[in-house]
């Protein structure tokens, strides 16, 4: 049977209180791990269950503490990714050691973070945008005007699977007021 239900629309169990109401999850930034060991231990466990190193089809991923340590307080992890599409040797999509960013909670990432932390300056004068859970500044993953691409993409999906993300969240990101 072919699966047509590629897009899911639901709340995670973690987001629901016992009385059925939505839990307003706000992260306490002081809780983020501050060392590589703590961080690795944190992300390999439930509810994240992420991989530290892995290969899935054409994607090889490595968690990078060096790139993560300054941004984890925003709820962002950094992975280094190699992509080599074996089907077509030396294809233009091939890249090595490229940075990919994973958001713990995309809806909590503001446009200001995209601009000032990840360095994407394409959101000027925009107050609200869609954002998916993994982004990269590699041009393969940017729109014509430089924003992070939201549409499903085979490369990004393969990278997500390698990292251990089985369901990619699409969130609304807004600019911080004031």
């Amino acid at each position: 049977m072919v699966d047509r239900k590629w897009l899911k629309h639901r709340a995670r169990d973690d987001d629901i209180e016992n009385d059925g109401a939505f839990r307003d999850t706000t992260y306490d930034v002081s809780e983020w791990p501050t060392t590589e060991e703590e961080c690795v231990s944190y992300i390999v466990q439930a509810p994240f269950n992420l991989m530290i190193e892995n290969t899935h089809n054409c994607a090889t991923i490595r968690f990078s503490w060096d790139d993560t340590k300054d941004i984890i307080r925003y709820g962002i992890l950094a992975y280094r990714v190699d992509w080599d599409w074996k089907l077509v040797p030396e294809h233009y999509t091939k890249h090595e050691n490229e940075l990919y960013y994973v958001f713990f909670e995309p809806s909590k990432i503001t446009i200001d973070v995209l601009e000032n932390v990840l360095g994407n300056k394409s959101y000027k004068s925009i107050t609200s945008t869609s954002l998916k859970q993994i982004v990269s500044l590699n041009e393969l993953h940017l729109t014509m005007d430089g924003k992070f691409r939201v549409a499903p993409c085979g490369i990004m999906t393969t990278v997500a699977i390698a990292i251990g993300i089985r369901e990619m969240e699409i969130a609304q990101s807004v600019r911080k007021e004031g």
Partner: protein
Amino acid sequence: MVINHESQKRFTESKIKHLDKLFSAYFGFPNVFTELNNIPNSKVNFEIKMHIMTLLSEIVFQFQDEDNRAKYNTDRNFAWAFLPIASGWRRLSADDFETTEEGKILPSVSANRLGSLMYNFGAMNFSLLNIISRSPYGKQYQNRYHRNLMMMTDSMGSQIRDKVSDAKSKIFWKTENMGLGGWDSEETLIHIIEALYKGVAEW
């Protein structure tokens, strides 16, 4: 009853040849329809194959129509936003969907044929159009049709959340096999991309 999928071919040989030439002229990928048509049903489900061929034929015909209109009318340039598939997608709204345990689906009979065409197997559609829009050799070799397709695909992609969203629910898509199978099954998309690239020279 056993269905003989081979007998359900909706594309005649002459139509396939015509589409091959047209698609190559606009997007630079030769023999796409022939190669797609030749994929065995054991590798790509017949329904998906027909879906992809229908989608790509709609795209290339709509590009041709818009191109002709732009050539013979000076009131405006080629405008992807006015393509019927873009407006069909734009018209899709949360009200068009049925909620299931797994996610939102469109009813099998939808008044919005082109919106449904883009939504059904949507992860695969977007991935494929994304690859086509970059040209066979990458972004620096794009022509204006690739660029228009890229802007159209990106614009549609940015609206995905609005299509099914209510204020409180989270939106996800399944990553495994682009939502087209389980972890253990062969990936459909890879065979389709293989067909896309088969006729491209110098690879």
